[in-house]
C-alpha cells in the first residue's frame, strides 16, 4: 500500500470543519473553547447558514473567536454581547445572530444584558462557556466559582460570607418566558461533544424558527488557571462542577409557540 492509497477521500473519517479558518488558535492546549468553536463551525455549515449568521464575540479568552470561524463577526464590549446581538437581530430579522460568552462576561458584568435579552425573547442563540473562572485576566473569581474554589482573588478558596454564592444563571434564564431552549452541556468526552453539537444545532434551529432565545451553557475547563493538566481538569470538572452545574436540558419549548415581541394591536 502506498501513501496515495491511504490519503484517499474514500478513507476520510474526520476532517477540520470547512468553516474553521487556518488561523492557529490562541487557546491553551486542553481548553474547552476550541472544541466549542469547532462544534459551532460544524453546526453553522450543517444548517447552511454561514451567509446569514453573525457572531458576537465577548471580552474574555474568546475575544478572538472572530479569527476562527469564517462568518461575519462583531466584537462586543465586556458583557454587552446580548445587547449588540439584539441590535443586529432586531434590525435584520432575516439573519441568524448568536453571542459567545464566558461566565464572567455573561453572569457578572453582563448579567443585566443577558437577562433582559432572554426576557424579551430576542431571536438569538447564546453560547455560554462556563469555566468557573476569569480565564483571560489570569484566573480571578467568577460569579460561577464554586465555594472553596481557589482563584487569584480567592487564594484561600471562595468563601460565601465574603464572596457570596456561585450563581446558577442558567436556572434563572430557564424561568424566563422569552427563552425556548435552555440546556447545559459539556465537551470533555467524545460522547458529550456529540451531545453538545446536537444541542447547539437545536438552539440554532430554534433561532431560525423565531422561537425566542435559545441558550446553551457548556460547563468547561480552564486547565491553565485551574493549574491542572487537561486530563486532571476534566476529572476536576466532573467531580466538582457537575454536581452543582448538572448537565442536561433545563427547558425545551421549541415545539410550542414562542413568546412573541409583536406589538399588541388595539
Amino acid at each position, binding site marked *: 500500500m502506498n501513501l496515495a492509497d491511504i490519503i484517499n477521500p474514500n478513507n476520510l473519517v474526520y476532517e477540520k470543519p470547512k468553516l474553521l479558518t487556518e488561523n492557529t488558535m490562541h487557546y491553551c492546549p486542553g481548553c474547552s473553547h476550541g472544541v466549542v468553536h469547532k462544534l459551532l463551525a460544524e453546526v453553522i455549515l450543517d444548517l447552511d447558514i*454561514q*451567509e*446569514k*449568521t*453573525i457572531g*458576537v*464575540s465577548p471580552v474574555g479568552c474568546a*475575544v478572538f473567536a*472572530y479569527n476562527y470561524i*469564517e*462568518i*461575519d*463577526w*462583531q*466584537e*462586543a*464590549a465586556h458583557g*454587552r454581547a446580548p*445587547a*449588540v*446581538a*439584539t*441590535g*443586529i*437581530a*432586531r*434590525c*435584520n430579522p432575516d*439573519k441568524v445572530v448568536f453571542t459567545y460568552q464566558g461566565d464572567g462576561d455573561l453572569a457578572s458584568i453582563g448579567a*443585566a*444584558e443577558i437577562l*433582559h435579552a432572554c426576557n424579551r425573547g430576542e431571536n438569538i442563540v447564546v453560547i455560554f462557556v462556563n469555566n468557573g473562572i476569569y480565564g483571560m485576566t489570569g484566573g480571578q473569581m467568577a460569579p460561577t466559582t464554586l465555594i472553596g474554589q481557589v482563584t487569584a482573588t480567592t487564594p484561600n478558596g471562595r468563601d460565601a460570607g465574603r464572596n457570596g454564592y456561585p450563581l446558577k444563571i442558567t436556572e434563572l434564564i430557564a424561568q424566563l418566558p422569552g427563552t425556548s431552549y435552555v440546556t447545559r452541556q459539556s465537551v470533555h468526552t467524545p460522547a458529550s461533544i456529540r451531545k453538545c453539537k446536537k444541542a447547539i444545532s437545536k438552539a440554532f434551529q430554534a433561532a431560525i424558527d423565531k422561537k425566542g432565545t435559545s441558550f446553551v451553557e457548556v460547563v468547561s475547563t480552564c486547565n491553565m488557571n485551574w493549574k491542572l493538566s487537561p486530563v486532571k481538569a476534566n476529572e476536576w470538572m466532573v467531580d466538582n462542577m457537575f454536581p452543582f452545574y448538572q448537565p442536561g436540558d433545563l427547558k425545551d419549548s421549541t415545539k410550542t409557540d414562542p413568546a412573541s415581541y409583536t*406589538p399588541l394591536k388595539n
Partner: protein
Amino acid sequence: MGELRLMKGNEVIAEAAIRCGCDGYFGYPITPQSEIMETLMDREPWNETGMVVLQAESEIASIHMVHGAAGSGKKVMTSSSSPGISLMAEGISYIAGAELPCLIVNVQRGGPGLGTIQPSQADYFQSTKGGGHGDYRLIVLAPSSVQEMNDFVETGFKLAFKYRNPAMILTDGVIGQMMEKVVLADYIPRVTDEEIDRRHGSWVTNGRKPNRGRNIITSLEMDSLKMEHNNIRLQDKYAKMEEEDVLFEEVQCEDAEYLLVAFGSSARICQKAVDQCREKGIKVGLLRPITLFPFPKKPIAALAKRVKGMLVVEMNAGQMVEDVQLAAGCNIPVKHFGRMGGIIPSPAEVVEALEQKLIGG
C-alpha cells in the same frame, strides 16, 4: 416645501428620525427627553416605514444595541440626558473605535450626579473632548431652535456615515421642551439591504456574501504598531472634519466691537442681548458655533483680529470658553459668563456681564 407644524423639540427629533428613514431607535427613559421615545412609540413607525423602536433595560444596553445595529450598516440612533450619556460612554468609545456611524441625542440637564432635570450645557467637555476612554471625537451638532432639532437629525446621520463616526446632537431641556413652528422634512425611504451591501459592503457585518468574504468589526488590536496606525487614521479623519465640516453662524459681526460666543439655547439668549446692546449703542455681534466638534476655530481667530473682546456665554462653569481662548489667541480678553444648576440667564444679565467684564473692565 415640507409640512408646517407647531411641535416640541423632543417630538421633532422623533418625527425627523422616522422621516429620514432611520432604521432603529434604542433608548431608556430620562427627563427631559422622554418624549422622544414616547413620540416614537405613539407613531408606531414599524407599521409605516419598518423602523424598529425598542425600550432597552438601560442606557448601557441602548448604546450597545446601537453598536450592533450600526455594525450591520443600519441608520440607528439613541437619545438620553446627561446621566444616561455618562452610562453610554463605554459604548460610544467602542463605536468610535470600531468606526461605525450612529446618532446620539443628548438633551442635557444639570449635574454633576443626579443634579437637576432643569436645562444645562455642562456636558460640553464630555461631548467634545471624548467622554469615554481613548483618543476619539464625536461630531457634535448644537441646535438652537426646534427647526434645527429637525434639520440636524438628517445632518447628523449624513456626517456620521460620511466619516463612519458617531454624531451627537447636543441640546438641552430648553430646546427639547419648547414648542416652536417647524417645517418638517419630506420622507426619505429607508435604505434597502441591497443598497447597504452596495454602499458599505467593505465593512458591514450583515452576513458574509460570496462577493465580499467575511467582515469583522472590532476595536481590538494587540499589535501596538497597528494600533497606532488605527489611531492615526482616526486623527486624520478628525482633521478632515475640521477642514470640511465646520458649521457656525455669525449675527451682526460686520461692525462688531465686542463679540458674544454662545451655542444652543444660550445663543438664543445672546441674540436678544445683541439687540439690547445695540439699542444702548454698543456694537456687539454673536458667533454661534453649530458644530462644537469640529470647532469653528478659524472664524473666531478672524474675529479676534477685529473685536476688542469676547464674552463666552454658557450654562456651565466655563467649558467652551477654553476653546474660544485657544482659537482667539492672547491679544484680546476672552471672558466667560455662565449660570449653572438649571438657571437660564436672561439677556439683561448677559448685557450686564459684558459691560462689567469687558467694557468697564
